């Protein structure tokens, strides 16, 4: 019987090549990072919502910047780019001008969170089976 640990394939909506390089096959650590992401994102996103509702664009930009970094660690490189664009606009646009983009960003974030929840469960089961 082979002792080679099977490979974990990340969801196709994530930047799998980057995640392979980042975790170097350490799925236990990947599980920890995905778990941390699921704990941390709601906390940071609450700050995003507060800043948007208070029309505080400098703070909104800073909060989006933090979320952008978090998305990067779980392989959402496309969402990182979207956050970067939104962050840049926070210094030149008004809240009203950003409203539609903000709604789209919220939808993308919800979708991303859902994918990571599923990936976290898959990672946990994978690690249990191959631990």
């Amino acid at each position, binding site marked *: 019987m082979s002792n080679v640990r099977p490979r974990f394939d990340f969801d196709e909506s994530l930047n799998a090549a980057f995640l392979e390089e980042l975790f170097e096959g350490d799925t236990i650590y990947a599980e920890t990072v995905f778990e*941390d992401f699921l704990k941390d994102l709601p906390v940071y996103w609450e700050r995003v919502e507060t800043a948007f509702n208070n029309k505080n664009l400098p703070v909104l930009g800073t909060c989006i*910047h933090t979320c952008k970094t978090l998305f990067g*660690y779980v392989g959402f490189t496309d969402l990182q780019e979207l956050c970067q664009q939104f962050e840049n606009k926070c210094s030149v646009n008004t809240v009203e001008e950003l409203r539609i983009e903000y709604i789209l960003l919220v939808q993308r974030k919800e979708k991303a969170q859902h994918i990571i929840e599923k990936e976290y469960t898959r990672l946990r089961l994978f690690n249990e089976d191959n631990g």
Partner: protein
Amino acid sequence: MKTTCIIVEDIKIAADFLRKFCEKSDLIEVKGHFLNVADALEYLDQEKVDLIFLDVEMPGANGFDLLDRITYSPMIILTTSKTEYAFDAFQYHVNDYLKKPFTYKRFLEAVRKLQQPGPEATPAPVPQQAAPAANQPADTEFLFIKSEDKLIKLKKDDILFLESMRDYVKFVTPGKSYITYSTLKNMEEKLIGPTFLKVHRSYIVNITKIDDIRGNTIYLLGNQIPIGKGHKEDLATRLNIL
């Protein structure tokens, strides 16, 4: 011996990755992790580390504020997810710049670069100051620097200021500048005395040549030198500002 470091980073995942990479490398010892600049500066007032992994955007003061306030010159690796800071990083003479999230391979590249022998780790190829003859006091009126394959005699009194250029130092005199292979830290030790003062992470000035000071800038024969926040008090004391 391992390089000691602190991590200044407000995002847990990012800080955990850094700590893990440091441990894995077996080259870096993490002395502490701070979530903001104020806590990091408080620690650095008591302890000195060789290296700081420094995030730029954090709640309150940002990473560049720490560089303005710090009173010694550790190696700095900026960690940020914004490429726009690259220019500022260059101006602050940081040792490297890691864009988050970064892989272990990229981390190791940055760390190994720091550990390559440079002017900090090894003596400069040619002494910057004339060696005194045995039992004779050194002539403190001038120094020799190696520039463009020559040993150039510089009267200390002619030097306006020194600027750090990573592994090199630029000496600026009224008519000419000279670049030599050394570090500002080295020069600070050699120029100790009442005339020269470090006013910024990247600058030492000849205080007798200062024309005036406006805000956080020293004006000196047509040159503008920034004053780092951490050096303001020293400067005020030395200039006897009332």
